[in-house]
C-alpha cells in the first residue's frame, strides 16, 4: 500500500506541469474528478431528464387514456396519430423508462459519479488505479447511451417487452413491432453498457484495495467507500450473467438457436425452436436483476451514511454493524432472485427457499434503518438540502422496504404479483430512495466538484415539493395494486371492474406532474450554480473525510503536496476533549486520546 503511494508521489510533479488541452481536460480526460462530472451530466442529468419525461407521458396516458394530448403529438410524432398514444409505443415507453432509470441513471449515473469522485479523494489516492480504463469505461457508457437513444428513431420503434425483456416476446420480431431493430439495438446497447460497468467496477475494487493512504485501514474507510466497494463487487459478480443472457438472446434472435424458445406457433406458423425455456432466461436475468436493486441502493445508502453523520455532527451509530449489514445484504442479494419468479412455473419448493432468503434480507435492512434513526438522536442537526434528502431517503427506504415483506412472501405474491402494488413498492424502495441519494450527493459534493455552492433555499423548495409528491404518487398506488390492477396496461377501460380506480389514477398523475416540474428548480440551481454560485470554502460542511483536505481548485493529483496520512476513523464528530465538533481524519491523535468506538 505505502509503496504504491510513494510511486505516486514521484510522478506528482510531472503531473502538475502536464499541459492539458481542451480535449484531454474535458473530453478524453483520465482525471477521476472530470470523469465523475461526465457521468453526472450524461448519466444523471441527460438520461434522467429523458427517463422522467417518459414516466410523465406514461402517467398522462394512464390518467387520461386514449385521449388526444398535444404533448404526445409533439413528442411522439407518428407514434401518437392525432395526439392519441399508440398502444405499442406505450409499452416502449414503459420499457425504455425502466431501462434508462435502472441502468443508465441509477447504476452508471449514481456509481459513475460518486464512486469516481469520492473513491480516490476519500481514501487518499492521486487518482484511480487505471485512469485509462476509467476513461474507456466512461466512453463505452457514452456509446451505449447513444445506441439506446438511436433506438428511438428506428422504423418500428424502440424495445417494448418491458425492461426485463422476457423472451419469447423479446425474441420474436413478429410478436410485436418493438421486438425488431429496436430490440437489437437495446441488446447491443446493454452489452456495451455491461462492458463499461465491469471496467468501472474492477477499477473501483482495485483502487480501494491497493491505493489507500497511510493509516487508512479498511475499518477506517468512510461508509461511502464501503458501499461503493461492495457495490462494485456485486456488479462484477452479477453483470456478466446478464451479459450471457443477452448474448444467448441475441443468438436466439439472429442465429436460430433455441436457448430460451420452444414449441411456438405464431401468426399462423410453427417456428423451428425446440428444447429451450423462457424460465432459464428469467433465472439468468434475475440473477443480475435482484443484485441490481442493491447496486442501485447501496451507493445511495453509503452517501446517506456520510451525510447524516456529518450533518448530525455525530458519529454514525454502529459503524461496524453498518459494514456487516452491507456485507450481509450483498451476500443475500445474490440468493434471492427467485422471488421475482414465484408464479413463473418453477418448482414450488424453490418458492419456499426464496421466501426464506428474501425475508432474511429484511434483517440487515432493518438494522441500517434503526442505525440511521439513532444517529439523529441527540444530534445537532444541520438541515442542509443534502441532509433533507438523506432523511427523506431513510423515510422512503422504510416505507418501500416494508411492503417487501408482502411481496417476498410467496403466498401473498400470488395475488399482488405484477400489479401496481409492485410498481409502488420498487419505486419507493429503490427508485425514489436512490434518486434522493443522488440529489443528496449532488448537493453535498457540489462544492467539491465545481468549487461553488448550490442555493440552499432552492434546495429546500426542491426537496419539499419532491418529498410530498413522491408519497402522493406512490402511496395510493399500493391500493390500486391490491385491488388487482395489473401493471403495464395501456388503458384500463376494458375492465369496468377497475373503474373505481380511475380517479385515483388522475390524482397520482397530478402529483407526478408537479414532481416533474419541481425538478426544473433543481436543474436551474445546478446549472446556474456552476457558473454563478457562491464560491465555496475548502470544507463548507466541516466534514472529517479526506476530500475536504484537498484544495478547492481543480487539480490533477488531488493534493498539491504529500497525500495526507490518516490517524483516525472518519466519524469523530463532537468527540469529547476537542474544541471543534469535528476532527478530520488526518489530524493525529492527541496524547492520551482514545478511540471511543469499537
Amino acid at each position, binding site marked *: 500500500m505505502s509503496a504504491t503511494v510513494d510511486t505516486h508521489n514521484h510522478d506528482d510533479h510531472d503531473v502538475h506541469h502536464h499541459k492539458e488541452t481542451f480535449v484531454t481536460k474535458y473530453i478524453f480526460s483520465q482525471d477521476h474528478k472530470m470523469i465523475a462530472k461526465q457521468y453526472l451530466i450524461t448519466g444523471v442529468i441527460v438520461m434522467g431528464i429523458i427517463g422522467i419525461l417518459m414516466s410523465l407521458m406514461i402517467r398522462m396516458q394512464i390518467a387520461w387514456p386514449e385521449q388526444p394530448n398535444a404533448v404526445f403529438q409533439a413528442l411522439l410524432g407518428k407514434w401518437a396519430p392525432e395526439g392519441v398514444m399508440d398502444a405499442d409505443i406505450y409499452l416502449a415507453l414503459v420499457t425504455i423508462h425502466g431501462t434508462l432509470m435502472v441502468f443508465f441513471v441509477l447504476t452508471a449515473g449514481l456509481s459513475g459519479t460518486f464512486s469516481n469522485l469520492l473513491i480516490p479523494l476519500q481514501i487518499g489516492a492521486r487518482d484511480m488505479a487505471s485512469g485509462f480504463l476509467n476513461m474507456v469505461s466512461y466512453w463505452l457508457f457514452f456509446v451505449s447511451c447513444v445506441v439506446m437513444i438511436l433506438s428511438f428513431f428506428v422504423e418500428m420503434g424502440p424495445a417494448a417487452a418491458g425492461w426485463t425483456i422476457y423472451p419469447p416476446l423479446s425474441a420474436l420480431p413478429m410478436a410485436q413491432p418493438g421486438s425488431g431493430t429496436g430490440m437489437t439495438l437495446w441488446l447491443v446497447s446493454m452489452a456495451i453498457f455491461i462492458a463499461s460497468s465491469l471496467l468501472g467496477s474492477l477499477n473501483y475494487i482495485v483502487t480501494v484495495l491497493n491505493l489507500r493512504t497511510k493509516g487508512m485501514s479498511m475499518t477506517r474507510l468512510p461508509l461511502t467507500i464501503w458501499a461503493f466497494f461492495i457495490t462494485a463487487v456485486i456488479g462484477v459478480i452479477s453483470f456478466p450473467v446478464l451479459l450471457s443472457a443477452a448474448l444467448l438472446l441475441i443468438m436466439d434472435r439472429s442465429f436460430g438457436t433455441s436457448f430460451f424458445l420452444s414449441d411456438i406457433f405464431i401468426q399462423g406458423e410453427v417456428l423451428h425452436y425446440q428444447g429451450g425455456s423462457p424460465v432459464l432466461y428469467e433465472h439468468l436475468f434475475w440473477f443480475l436483476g435482484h443484485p441490481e436493486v442493491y447496486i442501485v441502493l447501496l451507493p445511495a445508502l453509503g452517501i446517506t451514511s456520510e451525510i447524516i453523520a456529518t450533518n448530525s455532527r455525530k458519529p454514525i451509530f454502529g*459503524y461496524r454493524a453498518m459494514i456487516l449489514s452491507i456485507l450481509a445484504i450483498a451476500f443475500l442479494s445474490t440468493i434471492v432472485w427467485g422471488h421475482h419468479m414465484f408464479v*413463473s412455473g418453477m418448482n414450488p419448493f424453490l418458492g419456499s427457499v426464496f421466501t426464506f432468503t428474501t425475508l432474511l434480507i429484511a434483517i440487515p435492512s432493518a438494522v441500517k434503518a434503526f442505525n440511521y434513526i439513532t444517529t439523529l438522536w441527540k444530534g445537532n442537526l444541520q438541515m442542509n438540502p443534502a441532509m433533507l434528502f438523506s432523511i427523506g431517503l431513510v423515510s422512503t427506504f422504510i416505507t418501500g422496504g416494508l411492503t417487501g415483506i408482502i411481496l417476498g412472501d410467496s403466498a401473498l405474491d400470488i395475488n399482488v*404479483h405484477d400489479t401496481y402494488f409492485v410498481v409502488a413498492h420498487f419505486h419507493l424502495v429503490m427508485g425514489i430512495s436512490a434518486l434522493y441519494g443522488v440529489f443528496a450527493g449532488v448537493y453535498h459534493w457540489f462544492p467539491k466538484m465545481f468549487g461553488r455552492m448550490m442555493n440552499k433555499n432552492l434546495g429546500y423548495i426542491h426537496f419539499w415539493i419532491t418529498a410530498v409528491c413522491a408519497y402522493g404518487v406512490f402511496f395510493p398506488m399500493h391500493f390500486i395494486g391490491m385491488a388487482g390492477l395489473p401493471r403495464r396496461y395501456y388503458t384500463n377501460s376494458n375492465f369496468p371492474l377497475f373503474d373505481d380506480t380511475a380517479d385515483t389514477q388522475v390524482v397520482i398523475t397530478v402529483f407526478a406532474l408537479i414532481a416533474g416540474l419541481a425538478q426544473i428548480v433543481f436543474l436551474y440551481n445546478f446549472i446556474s450554480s456552476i457558473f454563478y454560485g457562491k464560491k465555496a470554502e475548502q470544507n463548507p460542511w466541516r466534514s472529517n473525510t479526506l476530500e475536504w483536505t484537498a484544495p478547492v481548485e481543480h487539480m490533477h493529483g488531488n493534493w498539491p503536496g504529500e497525500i495526507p496520512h490518516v490517524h483516525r476513523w472518519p466519524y469523530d464528530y463532537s468527540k469529547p476533549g476537542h474544541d471543534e465538533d469535528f476532527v478530520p481524519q488526518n489530524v493525529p491523535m492527541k496524547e492520551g486520546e482514545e478511540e471511543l468506538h469499537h
Partner: protein
Amino acid sequence: MTTLLTIIIVLFVAVAIWQLIKIFDLAQVGASNTQIADDKDNKMNGYLMMGFLAFIYIITILCFWYLGDLPLMSNSASEHGPGIDSLMAISMVVIFIVQTVTQFLLHYFAFKYRGEKGRKALFYADNNTLEAIWTGIPVIVLAGLIIYGLFTWNDIMNVDDQEDPLIVELYAQQFNWKARYGGQDNVLGKANVRLIDLDRANILGVDEGDPNAQDDVIVTELHLPVNRPVLFKMRSQDVLHSAYMPHFRAQMNCVPGMVTQFGFTPTVTTADMRETEDMKDKVLNINKIRTEKSNELTANGEEALEPYEFDYLLICNKICGKSHYNMQMKIIVETEEEYNAWMAEQTTFAKSLN
C-alpha cells in the same frame, strides 16, 4: 401546426418557471448568505419535518378511508383465499405498526434535535445491546411471518390427486384465452402447438389420434362447478402470459414449451357473489362512475357505456404485446347442475373438427 404550438407553449411555461426561479434566486443576493444551513433554516426545516410526518399519517388515513374498499380483501371466492387474506392482514398490521413508529422517530428526532449554534451533539458511537435488540426483534417477527407464509404456500401449491380435481387446460395466445375440459373421462388429450391445423379447426394442437382427446371440450368462457377442486394446466402458444384470477387469489404464468399448473376450489357462485353486500356496494359505485362518464360521452354524441355487472375474470398479467391490456376471459362459477347442463350443450373436440 398544433404540434408547433404545443412545443412553443411548453417552452414558454418552462421559461416562465425558469425566470421565476431566477427572480427568487437573485432576490437573495446581498445577504451574507453562505448557502450553509443556519439556525433559521434548521428551525424551519425542523418544523416542516413534523408537518411532513403529519402528511404521511394523513395520506395513510385518507388512503385507507377512500381506497380501503378497493382491495379485494373481503370477497375471496376460493377455499385457500381466506388463508392468503388473513396472512395479508397480519402482514399489513405488522407493517402499519413499524411504519407508524419508525416514521415518527425519524421525523420527530429531525425536529427535536434540529441544530442550534453552540450546542454540541452527543458522541454516541455504538451500543451492542441496542444492536442486538433491533436485530433480534425483526428476526422473531420475520420468523413468524416466514413460517406462516410457508404453510400457506405449501397448502396452496400442493395438489392432492386424491380429491379428483376437475382438469381444465387454460390456453393462452396473443390476445385471448381458451379453456379445454377433459370431457367425460376428465383426462386431457395430448397436445402440442406443432399439431395445430387451422384448416381442420384444430386450434389448440390437440392430438387427433389420442383416444382421450375425442371427448375434450374447447370453450371461450370458463365455467366451474362450485366447491369442486379444479386443477388448471396452463399452456401458451406464443409468448409468456400470466393467468391471473384475482378473486380466487390465483395466478400462474403460461410458458411456451411447458405446462404449468395451479389448483384451487371455487367456493362462491357468480350469482351468490353478486348478492354479497360488499359486491353490491362496489357495483353500485362503479355504475355511478360509469353513468357520469356516459353522460359526458352522450353529450359529445358518442355511445354510452354499458352498465357493469359483476363477473369473475381471468386476465393476462404478463406483458405480452400490443393488446395485453385487453386479454380476458369471463369465469362463471355455478352449481353442479347448472355446470352439467352447460357442459352437455358443448361440442366435443372430435365433432368440432372440419
